[in-house]
């Protein structure tokens, strides 16, 4: 598996943290383990390869890559660029490949026509007021058309990708891809609903 763009990795990481956001302990444990692993691994790498280590652990941490030849396949120009501060972001920004002035949103589709979709957006980089955005389906999300449905959640990122001293502007819309409900998920929903139904009477 190859990491296609920096922004994609950013999205994958963000999506995973979002999933864990309801449980602080799990999130903290994840970060701690990841940082420990990276710290160990960094010792084996020169500065030039620092991002390679991060790229490997981030993708491995998410369980999306199991290829033993990962190091060979990752293109150094296409490595992840975003890491939370807990992961020693300073060291990353000092390396050869990184991004600057990144702005990220999470949004969902509120209406859709054949050409455009309208979405409500929440600013992840600078939380506060919400925004409404209108996007052209063909221009902005050509590969996501079948995922663009009312209610569908997506991530929008813009930023400068600094690659060996060259600045390249990047924009990406990435619709959330989640696995369907498992039997366990479904049972959990039913159990929760039935518990509340038995504990609360409608007066």
């Amino acid at each position, binding site marked *: 598996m190859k990491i296609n763009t920096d922004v994609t990795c950013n999205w994958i990481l963000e999506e995973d943290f979002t999933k864990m956001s309801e449980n602080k302990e799990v999130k903290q444990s994840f970060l701690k383990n990841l940082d420990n692993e990276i710290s160990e691994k960094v010792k084996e790498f020169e500065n030039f390869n620092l991002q390679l280590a991060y790229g490997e652990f981030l993708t491995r941490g998410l369980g999306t890559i199991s290829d033993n030849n990962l190091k060979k396949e990752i293109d150094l120009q296409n490595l992840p660029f975003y890491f939370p501060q807990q992961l020693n972001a300073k060291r990353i920004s000092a390396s050869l490949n990184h991004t600057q002035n990144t702005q990220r949103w999470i949004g969902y589709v509120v209406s859709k026509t054949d050409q455009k979709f309208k979405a409500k957006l929440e600013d992840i980089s600078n939380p506060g007021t919400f925004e409404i955005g209108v996007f052209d389906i063909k221009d902005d999300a050509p590969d996501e058309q079948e995922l663009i449905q009312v209610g*569908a959640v997506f991530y929008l990122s813009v930023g400068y990708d600094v690659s060996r001293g060259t600045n390249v502007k990047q924009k990406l819309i990435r619709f959330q891809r989640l696995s369907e409900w498992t039997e366990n998920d479904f049972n959990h929903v039913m159990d929760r609903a039935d518990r509340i139904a038995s504990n609360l009477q409608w007066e």
Partner: protein
Amino acid sequence: MDFDKPTDAIAEITVIGTGGGYGESCVIHLGLQKWVVVDSCIDPISKNSLPLQYLEDMGVNIDSDVVLILCTHWHDDHILGISQILEKCSQSKFSFAKANDKTKFLRMVANDYEKSFKGTTNSSTKEFNKCLEILEDRKSNPIMSYPDRILFSVNINGFMNQVFSLSPSDTAIHNFDLEISTIITEFGKSNRRIVPLSPNFNSVALFLKLGHHRAMLGGDLEVSTSDNTIGWDDVVNNSQSIDQRSSFFKIPHHGSVNAYHEKLWDKILSERIKAGLTPFNIGSKLPTSEMIEIYKNKSEELYITSALGKNRRPKKRGKAINKMIQDFKIDLEEIPFQFGIIRARINMNEANSDWSIECFGTAVKL
């Protein structure tokens, strides 16, 4: 803002607006320091519930004096922050629109709540779930709202001051039971949020008896063009609890044309009515100038929690980010936060007293 608390004989209805995107709420003083909160809204920066902040600013004893919290309907623009209020108001009852099929309704809510672990869930469902959990912990059953239901009652100086729900109608409740299946089918998948698609006939409208005076809060209830057993038609034609004309009205659904019912204004509301509304200052803004003219003609005084903005504005960001957004031609409009309060007070013991209305923040008289 500094707010003074009303005395025991003064009724109060306070309409809190945010411009539309962050919700609206009404706070009611029934007398004798008995308070009711209808819906909730938040400050998008602090995430604090604005009606809760208002009550705290006044020095109301939150723990004991808030007797009822009502969720007119669980859309994002009416429910954000409502669990904060319920959490703090430990003696309060909680009410929402009746659903006949309790289990199916709770399964829909639980299904959407499960998505919170995947980052997809609606704020409204999360809020509603938190409220259900609080009620479970307290072993406090929710009170269902339906036509002519007394939600709270208190005897003050020989007057029964009461809060009645006027809707949703039996048909609307039945239709919602059927709609739940569609919602689960359409939005049940793990990566989709529930987006309300149908007009709002499930919202709770309220009728208030306040000593000599009456008032009505319209929630988001709309008028159906095809079925007179739902929405405002049902209230106007069938309500048994409305015993005299209301002299204060919180106009429903941001003053939209779909929420305007001629007979309601002509037969049920006072000719000298004072009215307040909250705008929806996003995209196709509400109310329209035509509707504002109609409401001005129908009411003695008309207030709005914030004036409608004319221009689309992008959110303020650093130059580099703004340039990138422009370069990529990303079409963005910030949902403005416009915090406005319309406060109406009246002496309940005097039949000839009139509403005294004050505006705070961005609220203005039209």
